[in-house]
Structure formats: structure tokens, C-alpha cells
């Protein structure tokens, strides 16, 4: 079930409505049923995997908490990590490593696997890892109720593409004791509308330009590829932040607060700043569960740079199984290390300084998106080559990405989202009619144009 579908709009209305009619105890069961129904709309068999994750996480957490011996605790943790990471490996990376080893060795180490990537597996794997590691570190308590763990794994607003929420933040909220809070509901609706607007009317509008350009870059001129890259820059942001807005808004309707996932990333003045603003929940996860355990910045400069590189390389690989993702992650790691070495990650001292650094950062981010979007590493190299050699192409130039990019930057600069959220609190009646009009517009849109998947579902 896609967020950008009439089915989801209907589903959400029914779930929220019934949820508030129930007593807290039944709300939890109802939420679990709703979440599984949400997943069943995509696949029933793959939901068994989530049941497995739930049982495994529940049991491991209990063992870690109940065990008095450190060795048993560590064994439980390592066993858990081995199981979930190897599951993720089998579904997501087995064929990638198989193909890579075939290129290198000339023979296949194991037969090709024809497995469908379970939706959201990267996200719920990371969530459960964070829960177990937090229990191990004593940051959070192991849940006594398996229902809470089940809800934590499959909570439908954040199931498919995050935000990746820590157990200590989400689980207490599954008490489901909040009564109808109209301020939160208005805020949730406003955020869903904002997300839908970004996803359906910006990201999906501009997607065909990026899709065409990256599908066959050898036929597109250097300028066309620059504009196609800008189109993707807009698309990836509006698509994913739109998804996050809908997820956060949907959860808020149920009285559950998910953490912010984006904070005006294209206004960042450095790559370090960008990663504080882009996919914040993943950045935090990588910092807390990878970068710091690797040693963080505690082992001197060289060790810090190595840790940054390792974290971002794995972060790149998390996004997708392909060498272009590895290069993309490597680029991020390299840029973060250079900034750290040259002290360029510090706050700008003047407006001019900010402007120059913002422009450089935006340029670097856009360039790195080429590796993120290209079908493979060769294709990314073709794009870069053609841009750098000002190559000619047979496809007419489409300048719309410039308009969209400028609009996005202005909307961020003026903080229109926050203004919209505040405005809706003061105009509840207008919000109601805007919601109805938007729902109608969305229904016509979904009927007329095929609903496109969210980009981050592939991760």
C-alpha cells in the first residue's frame, strides 16, 4: 500500500477513527492488526519475516536483560546481529557480491538467488539492531510485552522507509493512552498534506526528466545532464522528505511522535552540516551504532578519517547493492574527512562566507547524486564525462529543473513549511476544506497518473 494512493488515504482515515474509539489496551492490538494489514497489501508471505524479527528481538532482549553473565549477554547480541545482518545480506547483497566475485574470479561462489527484496527490510533491520544494542548497553529496558516489540518492528507509518526510531523514543508511546488532541491532529493533517504536495506534485512531476536523462545518458547533452541531475536533486529530496512528512503526520494522528528526518538539507553550508539535516534518523543511527563503536574521533586524526570513510562506505552500501553506491558512500566519507581536516565543517563567519560555502556544498551534493541515481558505475562515469566535455545530444534541453530547484530553495529559505503548519492551527475550518480539496485532487491524480513508488522503498 503506497502512501500516495487513495487506498492509503481511506485506510488512514479508518484506522485513526477506530483507534480513538477503542480503549488503550485494544488500541495496541488494533494498531498491530492495522500495521500487518498495511504490509499484507504488499505481501503476506514476507510478513512472516517480520514475525521472525519480532520473536528474535524480543527473545534476545530478554536474554540480554535476564542474564547475569556478560558472556551470555554478548553471545546473545552477536548471535542476533549475525542472524539479522546475514538475512539482510541474503536478500539484498548476495547477488551483488556474487556478480562482483564472478567478475573477479571468473566463477560463481554460489548460485544466483531470485529473491524479492522485502519492503522495508533495511529499515526494520536497523531499528531492531538499535533496540538490541540499546538493551545491551543498558540505554533502554527490554520490553516485557511482546506486543510492544511487534509494534516497534512493524509500526506502519515508519515501516517502509523510516524514520528509523530508537526504541526508547517509540516504545513508551505504544501505551496508546493519548486522548483526541485536535492540535496534534491538525498538525498531523497539515504535515501529511505538505508531504503529499512534495511527493505527488513536485517529485513525481519532475521524475520523468531525471528518468529519461539517466536512462540513456549517451543521447543527452552535457547541459541536459546537468539539468537532469538537478531534476534528480529535487526529486530525491521531495520524494523522501515527502514520505517522511506523511509518515510523521500519520503517526501524529495516532498521538505518536516520530523524530524529524529532514531539516532544510539543501541550505547546508558544508557536507558535515548536510548530514545533520539529511535523513537525520539514518545519520544518527550510523553515528551511534557504527561510527562511535568503530572508535569515532577518539583515536587520532587518521583513525577518525578511516572511521568516517568506513561509516559512509557502509552507509552507501546500505542504500543499495552496487558499486555506484559504494563510490557515493566513499565520496561522502572523503568529503567529510577533508572538511574535518581543513576545519571547513565549522560554522561560517559571515553571510558571504555562508553563501560561498553553501554554493560549493550544493554543487558537491548534486555531483554526488549522479552516483546515487545512475543505473551503475559505468553509467555514472558516462554522465560525468559528458558533462565535463560539454557533449552534444539529440534531446532538446528542458529547463524546468531550474525552476523547481529555485522554488525548493526559496520555500526552505522562507521556512514556508513552518508557516503553513502554524497557519493551519489558526484556521481549522479552512484546513478541513483544503484537506477535502486536496483529497479530491489526489484521487483524480492517482486515477489519471500512475502512482509511483517512493525512491527509498528500494533501499
Amino acid at each position, binding site marked *: 500500500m503506497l502512501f500516495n494512493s487513495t487506498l492509503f488515504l481511506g485506510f488512514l482515515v479508518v484506522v485513526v*477513527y477506530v483507534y*480513538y*474509539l*477503542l*480503549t488503550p*489496551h*485494544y488500541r495496541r492490538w488494533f494498531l498491530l492488526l492495522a500495521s500487518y494489514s498495511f504490509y499484507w497489501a504488499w505481501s503476506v508471505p514476507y510478513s512472516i519475516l517480520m514475525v521472525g524479527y519480532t520473536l528474535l528481538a524480543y527473545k534476545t532482549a530478554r536474554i540480554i536483560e535476564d542474564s547475569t553473565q556478560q558472556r551470555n549477554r554478548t553471545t546473545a547480541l552477536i548471535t542476533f546481529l549475525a542472524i539479522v545482518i546475514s538475512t539482510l545480506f541474503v536478500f539484498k547483497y548476495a547477488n551483488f557480491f556474487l556478480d562482483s566475485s564472478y567478475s573477479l574470479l571468473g566463477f560463481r561462489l554460489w548460485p544466483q538467488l531470485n529473491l524479492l527484496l522485502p519492503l522495508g527490510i533495511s529499515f526494520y533491520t536497523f531499528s531492531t539492531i538499535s533496540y538490541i544494542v540499546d538493551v545491551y548497553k543498558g540505554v533502554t529496558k527490554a520490553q516485557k510485552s511482546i506486543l510492544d516489540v511487534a509494534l516497534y518492528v512493524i509500526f506502519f507509518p515508519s515501516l517502509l522507509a523510516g524514520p528509523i526510531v530508537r526504541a526508547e523514543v517509540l516504545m513508551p508511546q505504544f501505551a496508546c493512552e493519548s486522548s*483526541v488532541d485536535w492540535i496534534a491532529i491538525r498538525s498531523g493533517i497539515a504535515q501529511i498534506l505538505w508531504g503529499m504536495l512534495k511527493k*505527488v*506534485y513536485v517529485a*513525481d*512531476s*519532475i521524475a*520523468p*526528466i531525471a528518468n*529519461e*536523462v539517466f*536512462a*540513456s*545518458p549517451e*543521447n*543527452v547533452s552535457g547541459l541536459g545532464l546537468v539539468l537532469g541531475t538537478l531534476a534528480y536533486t529535487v526529486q530525491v529530496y521531495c520524494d523522501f522528505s515527502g514520505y517522511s512528512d506523511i509518515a510523521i503526520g500519520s503517526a501524529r494522528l495516532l498521538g505518536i511522535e516520530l523524530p524529524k528526518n529532514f531539516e532544510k538539507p539543501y541550505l547546508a553550508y558544508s557536507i558535515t552540516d548536510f548530514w545533520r539535516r539529511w535523513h537525520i534518523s539514518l545519520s544518527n543511527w550510523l553515528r551511534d551504532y557504527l561510527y562511535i563503536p568503530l572508535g569515532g574521533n577518539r583515536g587520532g586524526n587518521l583513525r577518525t578519517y578511516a572511521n568516517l570513510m568506513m561509516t559512509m562506505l557502509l552507509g552507501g552500501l546500505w542504500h543499495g547493492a552496487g558499486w555506484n553506491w559504494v563510490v557515493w558512500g566513499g565520496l561522502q566519507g572523503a568529503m567529510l574527512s577533508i572538511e574535518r581536516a581543513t576545519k571547513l565543517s565549522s560554522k561560517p563567519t559571515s553571510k558571504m562566507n555562508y553563501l560561498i560555502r553553501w554554493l560549493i556544498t550544493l554543487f558537491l551534493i548534486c555531483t554526488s547524486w549522479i552516483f546515487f541515481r545512475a543505473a551503475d558505475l559505468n553509467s555514472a562515469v558516462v554522465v560525468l564525462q559528458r558533462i565535463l566535455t560539454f557533449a552534444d*545530444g*539529440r*534531446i*532538446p534541453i*528542458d529547463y*524546468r529543473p531550474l525552476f523547481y530547484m529555485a522554488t525548493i530553495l526559496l520555500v526552505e529559505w522562507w521556512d514556508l513549511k513552518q508557516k503553513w503548519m502554524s497557519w493551519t492551527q489558526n484556521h481549522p475550518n479552512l484546513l*478541513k476544506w483544503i484537506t*477535502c480539496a486536496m483529497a479530491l*485532487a489526489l484521487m*483524480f*491524480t492517482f*486515477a*489519471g*497518473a500512475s502512482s509511483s513508488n517512493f525512491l527509498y522503498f528500494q533501499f
Partner: protein
Amino acid sequence: MSQIFNDKAIANLKTTVRYIAVDLSKVLLAFVLLEALLQVTAREYTNNVFDREFTGGHPIAVSSPGNRGPVVPIKKAPGELRILGMGDSTTFGTGIAAEDTWPAQLATIFHKNGAKATYINSALEGYTLKEINTVYRNLWFQYQPDLVVLAVDNNLVSMNWFRRDDKSVTANPYLEPIAKSKLAGLKNQFKILATPSWLKINSQKCLYFLGLANNNLKPDVPLGATLALGWQQADLPPDVAERAWKQFETDLSVLRDSVAADGRSLAVVYLPTRFMAFDGFSDNEQQVPRQRLTMDAGKRLGQISKSLGLPYVDSTEGVRRGRSQIAQKEGRFAPMYIKFDTVHLDKDGHKAVAEDLFGLLGKSNQPR
């Protein structure tokens, strides 16, 4: 057993029902007002039914041999001038009545000029040249038409290319018995309403305007009006339009020979797309980026017809002339195409085509 619903559930339910009832009545009132407004100002949005039985609200009556329109006896009456119209959905008359299609209007023009003209509209939606030829050889040649005319629109070129390897001829679906559906029947009861069609068409326009719908061709299924115009798209082979036209030329020569084998001559008419015939914003509702078009389909078809020795007329000018004449004589704006369609001509568009064809064929076929 613990309580399932909270204490306020019943009260909340009642409040919700009350609020929904009030808001729904407001929406209903808005709908009624919009419908009244459209009925007064834009009646063309009513009767917009496209299904097995209706096209643009006009009944689809197909005679037993398979032509849209009246049954024509195989044997010709003395002095009768019989016109055989061939083509695809445009000639079939998508969105218009059978008597408004160009074969019917051409017969009328001949009639006015003293000829006892009758017509057979042998076209069918989605036809290819091979199918047209097969149906001609199997059926229509025995009706001894005096004029055999093929109307070519851009869709015919792309469909002919896409289905170039098809071996069998599609069965005429209108000769199959109608499966009565209660839902379709119920839906057609509301055909008098203008609002649903107004909302549907205008939301589609918005989708094109916003870029949510576009004219890109699928590389594996390159169907669309733009292929014949040399549409350039990064993931489409650059020569696909040229190859489609080459295929068209080959198949057209087969059809020409087929018609010539009966001692007749095939005439060809080109039916332009709306966005190529006119420059206005409203003439390009699907936002076709004209800078991606690299061919003049009318000229290309003219070259092919000339090389095959076929009489040919490009109706682009005729359609333009038709619009300006209507504006001058009747003082109304004539779109010349059915609603939100770039290919299918309306009654006025078909009339313009019929007049062009009469200009091409009339002199040599005047009654003696």
C-alpha cells in the same frame, strides 16, 4: 473481559455522523451548483460516454458485414458512386456519430453535386495496414467501390509499426454479442451529467500541465501520435520513426497493389494532429513539446504517396481553413477535434477532410 470501546465512543460516533452529514450536504450543494452552471455554459461535457455501445455518447451501430453505418448491399445500384473509407479509429468516428464521419460527409458532398453516392466505413479502432488490406481482400472488394480512400492519422503509423509482426487479423469486436453489464448500464444513466466528465477532463489537463502525465513513448511499446512526427526521446532509438515510416511505405505499397488488382485506385488523405495543425495553447492541452518533433508527417506521407503513384491530400490546411471559415460564417470557435484529444477529429474536422477529398477526387468522379 475488559472494555473494548472507550466511554466517549458513542458520543463521538454521533458527533462524527452529524458533522459528516452537514459537510456532505455542503459538498452536494456545491456539486448541484457546478452541474447547473455546466449545463448552462458547457453542455458539451454531457453525454461523454465511451464504451462498447457508445462513442462520445453516440451509439455504435455496426452492420452485419462489420462497417459502421447503414447496411450496404453487395450489388451496386445503377449510377451509384460507392465510396469505401478505410482507416483506423479516426475514420471509424471515435467520439462522433456515424453520419458525421468523413466517408459519410464525402458521400453527402458528392450527393449535393449530383452523384448518387453511398459510403462504406470499413475502419476499425487500432487497425494496421495489413489488417486493412486483409479485410479489403476478404470482404470489401466484392462491394465494388468506385473510390477507395485510406485516411492516415499518426496513430495508424505507430500502430502499424508496433504490430508489424502480427500474423492474425483482430476480430471485429462490434460483431460480438454485447455482454450486458448492470454497472455499465447504471453508469450510462448518468450520462446527462456534465460534472464527472468536466472534472475528469480538466484534471487530466492539469496532470499534463504539471508534468504528472507526459507524452513519452515506452521504448518497448512506442505507441502514440508523436512517433510519426519523429519524436526524440533519450531512451528511444533515434531512427525508430524513420523505420516506422519505412514499414508503413512497404505495407502501403501492398495495399495499393491489392486495390489496383481490382482495377481501382487508392487515394490517401493525411489527418493532422491538433497540436501540429494549430499553434494555440488550447490546441496543445497535452503539452506536447514541439521541439522534440523532427518530422512533418503530412509531407512524409506525401512523399510516400507520390513515390507509389497515389493521389494524395494533406488535410492540415483544410482543417485550419475549416476552423477559420466556421469562425467567419457562424461566429463560433470550432476546436475541430473531440474533447481533450489530439488525433480524433470532430464533426467539423471530418467535414474539412471530406471537402479536401472532394477537391482531390471530385473532378474525376463527377456524374456524366
